[in-house]
């Protein structure tokens, strides 16, 4: 029974990994670009949730949407002020831009919120439920399920809608898309909005169920790397599976090896992947 609990818990956390990683993979697929600040987007989503609860009030739906919108706006602003200027520049500028941004956001958060761990005050989702003998916090269950639904939603948005096909057209061939009357700049800004928005709402969901501090972003971005590599660079559906697998591996290794080994196992997996299948486990070459 404990084993089942560990596995379900891992999958629910993995669902949130899947959601924010799908944002990172979207940017990679669109622009061949790695956002080192993506973990900080998740972290900011958590604090937006906290601020909304404390200063405005409202349930998970309110602060979840608030986090998504706030981060989407931030993502678009960052695209226009920074990313579009470095994307055609040297590799150094590309890496430095989001790497510097990550530091800036992380340490500004330390400055404002201090290094202490915080968590959301008790809310409608506090408490536990028992499903067939497995005890689960309601918050984890809801957060995990919502995350899966949203990740699938993002996948459907990309594959089944007009906006999605425009996004993919830009990813496929920028020039051809321009000839078709699509404005790549707008589409890339939209991708940044979606990506950061996904990170923001994933942060809000994470905040419902887990405590955090400003340093979580660094862990999250590395987890997102693992998920993106495992799921195939650029594939949202791949990152859904990979996120669940990563959460599961973490939970299982934390349970059997000890909590400190969970990240070692996951990062080790990333290095192994680079050696064995650099294009990603489920990715196309």
């Amino acid at each position, binding site marked *: 029974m404990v084993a089942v609990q560990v596995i379900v818990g891992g999958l629910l956390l993995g669902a949130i990994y899947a959601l924010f990683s799908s944002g990172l993979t979207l940017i990679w697929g669109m622009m061949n670009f790695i956002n080192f600040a993506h973990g900080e987007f998740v972290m900011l989503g958590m604090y937006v949730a906290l601020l909304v609860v404390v200063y405005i009030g409202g349930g998970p739906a309110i602060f979840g949407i608030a986090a998504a919108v706030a981060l989407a706006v931030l993502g678009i602003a960052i695209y226009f002020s*920074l990313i579009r200027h470095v994307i055609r520049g040297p590799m150094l500028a590309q*890496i430095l831009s989001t790497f*510097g941004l990550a530091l800036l956001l992380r340490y500004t958060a330390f400055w404002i919120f201090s290094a202490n761990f915080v968590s959301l005050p008790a809310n409608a989702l506090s408490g536990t439920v028992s499903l067939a003998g497995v005890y689960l916090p309601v918050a984890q269950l809801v957060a995990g399920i919502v995350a899966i639904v949203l990740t699938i939603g993002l996948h459907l948005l990309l594959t089944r809608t007009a906006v999605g096909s425009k996004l993919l057209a830009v990813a496929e061939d920028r020039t051809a898309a321009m000839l078709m009357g699509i404005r790549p700049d707008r589409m890339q800004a939209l991708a940044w909005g979606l990506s950061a928005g996904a990170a923001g709402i994933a942060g809000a969901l994470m905040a419902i169920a887990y405590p955090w501090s400003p340093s979580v972003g660094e862990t999250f971005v590395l987890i997102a790397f693992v998920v993106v590599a495992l799921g195939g660079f650029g594939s949202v559906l791949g990152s859904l599976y990979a996120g669940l697998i990563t959460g599961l591996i973490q939970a299982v290794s934390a349970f059997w090896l000890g909590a400190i080994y969970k990240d070692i196992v996951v990062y080790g997996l990333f290095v192994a992947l680079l050696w064995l299948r650099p294009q990603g486990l489920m990715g196309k070459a």
Partner: protein
Amino acid sequence: MKSSFPPYLRIVLLAAALLAFPLVFTGAFYRDIGVTFLLAAISASAWNIVGGYAGQVSVGHSMFFGVGAYAPLLLYTLFGWPPIAGIPLGIAIAIALAIVIGMPTFRLTGHYFSMATIAVAELIRIFVGTWDFVGAAIGLQGPARARGWWDLTFRSELPYYYIFLAVLGIVLATTAFIERRRFGFYLRAVKASERAARSLGVSVRRTKLQALALSAAFTSVAGSLYAAKTGFIDPDSGFGILVSVQMLIVAALGGAGMLFGPLLGAAILIPLQTATNTWFGGGGSGLTYILYGGIIVLIARFEPGGLLELWHRIRPRWSRRAHAA
């Protein structure tokens, strides 16, 4: 500075200034800044070989630094050997690490390399923090009192200053040597366009791997010097991400891919860092990194070539003379 100075004279003047610094500024405070400056310049110059010249941006160079820092103190802890004996061991492990990371990622675009470096550095940091053999979270200590000069444990800052200066000289001389030879041309070609470089017969992957191995070896030496100077090492000061950040920002601010770029970057940042830490007390280190983040973003956005390139651009006459020589 007058533009009529020939380059070698500028180098002689620079060397003289660096040699004279601790004799002019004799206070422990200034000498400590000098030593910190030299260490930052050494590690950023080492980073510069692969990150600047070859254009492969490592964001996890702390792994090489940490390996270099741990090796001497580990040999001292285990066998009582002088820390200096650990320097070759650090170099060997750093090169092995470089190969492990470079072999798979150098077949792919530069983003993969950057991702792999930060992930491996973090992996090692966490692992070392759990490994009792290397002191786990507490880390390792060096000799408390020197048994001889080979312990590299001095009361005064002065010996450290001149040892570090000599190592900096070696790193810069090696870089300058490379710059003018085939390897240096190949590095710049690989950075500019891998496809074009390959069409001219450059083995791109091997070139990048050699650059990373050399860079890793020098970075490891920087780590060993740091450990010798401070006398102890723990996972964060050896492998922490901020160690990588400092190399990156020092090189990028001064001018990545330029011989004296890291030197300039260190000359600006180290006093700045000391100032913020002094003015804002313990909380100042957080502010330092907000500042670092901001500077890195600004460099990326406006001046990826760093301050040296900016200088060369706004002083074209000066620049042309330097190139013609």
